[in-house]
């Protein structure tokens, strides 16, 4: 009787929800990375292994979604565009550790979790772009607070994960008090309220609204290959900060396995594929990032920007300070 009631009440729901059961060999990916970036990789994977890859793309809110879905979540693999999100997922106990010698060996130690819950796939630098008209400069992130840059600095929202990671690294290096002061001074130096995205800041430099901006490395390559944006990129130098001390701040795009993954075996296979040489090469060429696997070269264009010293602070350390970074940003009212 209860069964009958259940069916009559909830079957209609299934029509609205478009729910349907699935059964073949497959793996479900929740990705922060945009589809056009990852689809070529997945197609190759399916060619090789006959495992179908279902991708759902989310610009925001993946962790919250996973948390809500709980043990009924269909997610196997999670792809992120920065370290903070991976740590967040782990903090919410949404990941499981993957025991894979392949993964452990392919990836440098500082770019994977000690407990095997997350793995980097590519690295990117948070550069400082500077107007060519300033001439060549050698900057540290700390210099952004310098009086001489008053009214000449542009950046996207302080609360964007890329910036949050940078602030967290500042906290790891200098402590809370210094970082709060640094934030206030940088805010003071801003030419305009934080707005837009990383490329938008370079556009602002081109328009002479400011001279210095923060931005990830691969955007430079992207701008150079876009007709409209090449004009902006041509007017800036891409600088690797802190070369005289600890090195430039690194972030990663990474992968992790969901705690309740229904297709764990397939998931692991996909993860191992993503660190394979061919896959890493694809990453390097398509998105102009630095492949994480040693021995796989960056694309020619990216290599032309020069070698650099990277901050070797373990990412886990940086990620630990994420929440603190957010609080400091609020205290400095950075975005307001």
């Amino acid at each position, binding site marked *: 009787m209860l069964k009958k009631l*259940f069916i009559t009440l909830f079957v209609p729901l299934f029509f609205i929800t478009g729910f349907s059961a699935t059964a073949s060999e497959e793996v479900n990916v929740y990705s922060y990375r945009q589809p056009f970036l990852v689809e070529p990789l997945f197609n190759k994977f399916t060619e090789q292994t006959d495992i179908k890859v279902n*991708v759902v793309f989310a610009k925001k809110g993946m962790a919250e979604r996973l948390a809500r879905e709980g043990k009924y979540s269909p997610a196997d693999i999670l792809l992120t565009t920065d370290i903070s999100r991976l740590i967040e997922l782990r903090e919410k106990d949404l990941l499981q550790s993957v025991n894979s010698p392949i993964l452990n060996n392919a990836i440098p130690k500082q770019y994977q979790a000690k407990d095997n819950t997350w793995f980097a796939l590519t690295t990117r630098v948070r550069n400082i772009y500077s107007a060519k008209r300033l001439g060549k400069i050698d900057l540290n992130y700390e210099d952004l607070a310098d009086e001489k840059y008053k009214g000449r600095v542009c950046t996207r929202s302080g609360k964007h994960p890329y910036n949050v990671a940078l602030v967290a690294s500042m906290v790891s290096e200098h402590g809370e008090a210094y970082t709060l002061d640094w934030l206030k001074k940088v805010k003071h130096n801003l030419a305009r309220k934080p707005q837009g995205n990383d490329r938008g800041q370079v556009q602002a430099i081109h328009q002479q609204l400011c001279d210095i901006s923060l931005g990830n490395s691969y955007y430079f390559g992207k701008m150079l290959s876009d007709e409209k944006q090449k004009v902006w990129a041509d007017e800036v130098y891409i600088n690797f900060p802190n070369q005289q001390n600890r090195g430039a701040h690194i972030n990663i795009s990474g992968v992790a396995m969901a705690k309740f993954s229904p297709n764990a075996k397939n998931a692991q296979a996909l993860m191992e594929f993503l660190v394979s040489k061919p896959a890493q090469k694809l990453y390097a060429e398509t998105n102009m990032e630095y492949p994480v696997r040693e021995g796989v070269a960056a694309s020619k264009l990216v290599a032309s920007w020069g070698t650099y010293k990277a901050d070797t602070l373990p990412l886990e350390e940086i990620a630990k300070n994420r929440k603190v970074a957010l609080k400091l940003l609020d205290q400095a009212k950075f975005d307001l």
Partner: protein
Amino acid sequence: MIALYNSKTWKLSSYIIALVLVVPVLVMLVGGVSTSTELFTHLWQTVLPTYLENTILLAFWVVLLSLLFGVLSAVIITQTNIIFKRQLRWLLLLPLAMPAYLVAYLYTDLFDYAGPVQRYLRAWFGWQSPNDYWFFDIRTLAGASVMLALVLFPYIYMLTRGAFEQQDQNLIRASRLLGLTAKQSFFKVALPLARPAIAVAASLVLMETLADFATVQYFSVNTLTTAIYDTWLGYGDLGAANALASILMLLVLFVVLAEQRSRAGLRHQSARPNLQRELIKLSISEQVIASFFCWSLVILGFLLPIILLIVMAIQYSDVAQLSVLLSTGINSLKVSFFAATIAVVIALFLGFYQRLHNDKYRDMPQRVSGFGYAVPGTVLAMAMLSTLGPLDHWLNATAEFLGFTAPGLILSGSLFAIVFALVVRFSAIANGTIISGIKQIPQSLDYAPAALGANLKVTIAKVHLPILKPVLLMAWLLVFVEAMKELPAVLLLRPFNFETLSSQIYQLISDERLEQGALGAILIVLFGLLPIILLNKSKDKS
């Protein structure tokens, strides 16, 4: 009134339906109030006061500007002999079809440093860099206020115009015979009498402003709404987000209560008002000024944006976009279709319950169910998530208990959440339209068929529903269009890889790539025009 029907099941179902529509908001409120996170204290000590201040300032300026635009244009149209009055009369309604975030993007494009206006100015005056001249920055609180006022003032215009047009002119004549000039009569009689209508419209504008998310986000103006979004997705703290949403709800409640009180001022009006009025004759210079004012509103609020969109569409559209347009369009249609149909069915159910029963609180279910309109989309999304998530888990657990395989997240992870949210939000529209339609049906028609031997179902099906057809259509259409345009709730609730027209357009805007979706944007505007045209037609008929 004799109760025609006294069905306990009908009564129970009505209350349950109303409750279901209200529960998510209650859950959110409870969640927000019981949250005692240090995060909230932290927010309160740092950025929350600024969020609040921005929210209140924004609301203040938008209402002020909308009143200025709306009341003034209504006065010009109803009291004077302005040239092209017939056309202006309905043209002034058009900005309603424009989503505010669309206008915001288009004008930013226009007035930005790299935009045509400044480029032209620089070329003309030979300026080289931004330091050579001053130009206003549109991406500010002031800019956002103007954008919102431009697309929201038609609410005030429409209701004020209606109030003036329905006024008994004998009141003005009486005032004049008592010694007041026409102008004095306007200020001492016509305007005060229109005040309740103006107040209702202003509270509508206020609610829409508090609900706005996309415009303020695009302009980097940090209000409570953006804070809710960020807190949930940035801090990942649902409790704190709920707390913020509750504060927003309080503000909205305040507005709603204020509006109810002013509604009490709608006093009785003559059954046969004298509508023949003496128009103020404008001099040539007055005609010029008045026309300039009205036409500026029309151009800035609708014509210019739509032209910019069309130009964009012509320049940038390609075949690839059409397929994207098709799929997002279908998604929008699907979701809106379900929402509209369900809302109308519920409204009918509750409306007839109210009509045919006699218990004291019979209009409660309908009133309560309409409360969702005041709830901003973002807040509603929060409420949905807080309610449907646990519900889903319970469902799954129950299913397993009964021996089925767990169906997964059919409520919170699917269209159900969006459709539910849209129904909650827009039930008020369906209710209002259908209730007033039912009121028009003479009481005798309730009883007559019974005398001929027909039972209630037949009566409703064969007598009432056919009479209600135009009203049903109107209600359905209104909910359908509002659902098409809704953004914040959709953004937060949609399943992955599910874009509607509105979310797609918004995505493109935040990537500064609207050109790719100009066609879709035009489509949204066209849909928005539909109810305006229909409303206009029906008003002229009545």
